[in-house]
């Protein structure tokens, strides 16, 4: 019975982490997740480390016996999520260039005009373009 519960727990864990890695994360969600999972440890062990220095994970690792595992897992998930979002945002021009030419040729670029046009045409833009816009956080 204990074995079954453990297996079920592992399954739930796998499903949850699978769902998290299948989508990108907004920067706001990323910041909030670090704060939630690591905030208490940061205030306790790394109160003189700023988040932008890149030294925070190293500091937390130095106290890993006392820092919850969830903090390390979520910190890693945040970095993966941000990297995927950065990649999607960087790739959007390429992924959507054909759709932009097809549906938005008369639109003056700049101030997100092309993005706005693509979102207006979202039912017909190419799937790869749409997926990139979703991953970039500009469509849903």
């Amino acid at each position, binding site marked *: 019975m204990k074995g079954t519960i453990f297996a079920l727990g592992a399954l739930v864990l796998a499903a949850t982490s699978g769902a998290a890695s299948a989508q990108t994360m907004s920067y706001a969600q*990323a910041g*909030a997740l670090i*704060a939630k999972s690591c905030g208490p440890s940061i205030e306790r062990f790394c*109160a003189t480390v700023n*988040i932008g220095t890149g030294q925070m994970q190293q500091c937390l690792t130095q106290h890993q016996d006392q820092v919850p595992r969830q903090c390390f897992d979520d910190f890693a998930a945040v970095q993966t999520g*941000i990297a995927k979002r950065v990649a999607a945002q960087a790739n959007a021009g390429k992924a959507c260039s054909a759709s932009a030419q097809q549906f938005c040729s008369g639109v003056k670029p700049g101030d997100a005009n092309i*993005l706005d046009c693509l979102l207006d045409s979202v039912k017909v833009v190419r799937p790869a373009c749409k997926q990139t816009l979703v991953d970039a956080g500009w469509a849903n």
Partner: protein
Amino acid sequence: MTRFTRLVGGLALAAALAAPLATSASAQTADNNQQILQGLSSVTNDDPSLTVELLRKMAQDAVAQNQPLGLNKSAIAQKLDKLAQITVQIQFALNSSIIRPESYGTLGSIADAMHHPILWNYKFVVVGNTDATGTRAYNLKLSQERADAIVQALVTLFRVSPDRLEALGLGQEALQVPGKPDDPINRRVQIFNIGTMGPMGKAWMNPQ
């Protein structure tokens, strides 16, 4: 303008649709993100003569000469009032430039806005302000360190291009409420849109 309004409406709708699945914290920041986009994208008076160097010099001179604090907004504050801007609350450790974890989400919201194509082609200055408690010189130094810490977090953790960001500490030289110089309301971080990176529309999906 109609296009922009529609898009922002879309973002608000997205936030509302996402809310049932998200924690209350992320619903809050999604809301902020929309306000940040709106505040920073309304470029009206792009004044090329208004530079970070000029503002820094004005603040340094005010401190060096110990210019009296008037009841009206300072010359610096009046210049800044013309720019598209937002004011955010970032929590720092006492007398320190360490950003407290409770503000990481707010920093992320700012990054979300800066990574949106509406704002891609723009540069920003992150301004730190204190109230008038403590010495002027100390306040100027602390606010610069705090503005630096915010820029550093936006660049390293949230991947905003460093070319688009400048940090400026103004200490107590641009009080929000000059009539109440010691009021904590004066402690704030402001972000100003200070113009374009390059010609508009050259690259419609230029990643920054």
